[in-house]
């Protein structure tokens, strides 16, 4: 992955990899929440699929799936980046962009706009 690796780690320093992994994973989780929310709203079949627990409806599957995506992303990124220093500026931009996706796609007027309602 392009962001990984690079700067040598000073002995007294915690590498920025674990932090970068947690931050990027949180961005991915937030974006997943927005994307799944939109998908569940737009497609009846997905809405049905996401109904993990009937009384809570599609929300149960949307959040569960987003949380799984977040945790898997965190786990995978952690394993790759734990001992390294990564290009934090890039990680930061991507993470905030993903967070923005999550914020925008959970906002109903944006959801409706995308669906052409």
């Amino acid at each position, binding site marked *: 992955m392009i962001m990984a690796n690079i700067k040598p780690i000073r002995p007294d320093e915690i590498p920025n990899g674990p*932090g970068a992994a947690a931050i990027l994973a949180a961005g991915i989780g937030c974006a997943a929440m927005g994307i799944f929310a939109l998908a569940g709203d737009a497609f009846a079949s997905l809405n049905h699929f996401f109904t993990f627990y009937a009384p809570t409806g599609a929300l149960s599957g949307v959040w569960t799936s987003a949380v799984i995506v977040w945790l898997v992303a965190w786990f995978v990124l952690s394993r790759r980046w734990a001992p390294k220093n990564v290009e934090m500026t890039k990680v930061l931009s991507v993470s905030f962009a993903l967070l923005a996706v999550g914020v925008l796609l*959970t906002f109903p007027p944006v959801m409706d706009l995308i669906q052409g309602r």
Partner: protein
Amino acid sequence: MEISFRDLMTVFHGMGFGALFMLAFSAALAELYRMSAPGAPSIPSAREHNLLLFYLSIMVILAWGAVLSGAYIVYPWYRAAVPPGVTDLADYPKFLLTSNPKTSAWHSLGMEWKEHVAWLAPIAMTMVAYVFAKYGPALARQKEIRTAVIGFAVVAFVATGVAGAFGAFLNKYAPVRGGAMIEIIAGEQEGE
């Protein structure tokens, strides 16, 4: 003075978890900002560090408590389908709101926003607490990580604010109701 079981659960969701979480925020933001400020006049002591970590951990629990109690306890009552033949929608808040064009946006904007955006808060706060646990005062030398921590925390705060404010309105215009009545104080007749 009495309260229905469903009201009481809504109170646990909204005040016990949600409002406490929000009330904790300003101190968390101030301390995160301060402790990790580059050129901070002092290195936080281990005790200060552990105290803030403990505080953030409680916030993470409150955040998850708020969304889970919302999604699995209150929301099912809110969205319960109206059985055939029932015409009084008072016990079916979602349908009560959507039955009237003047109130439908409280559902289609308020509830639909709230039920999704609120989930950003526990994800973001979990990351914030983890990163603070991992780096602590060393954040002062990790400018980008610090920016991310504070940025995600602010978004979590705003998302919770949206959820809480609409929660308060929904609880007023179409409260979840029903279940056993729980008497808090025995009835009294006199007024003043």
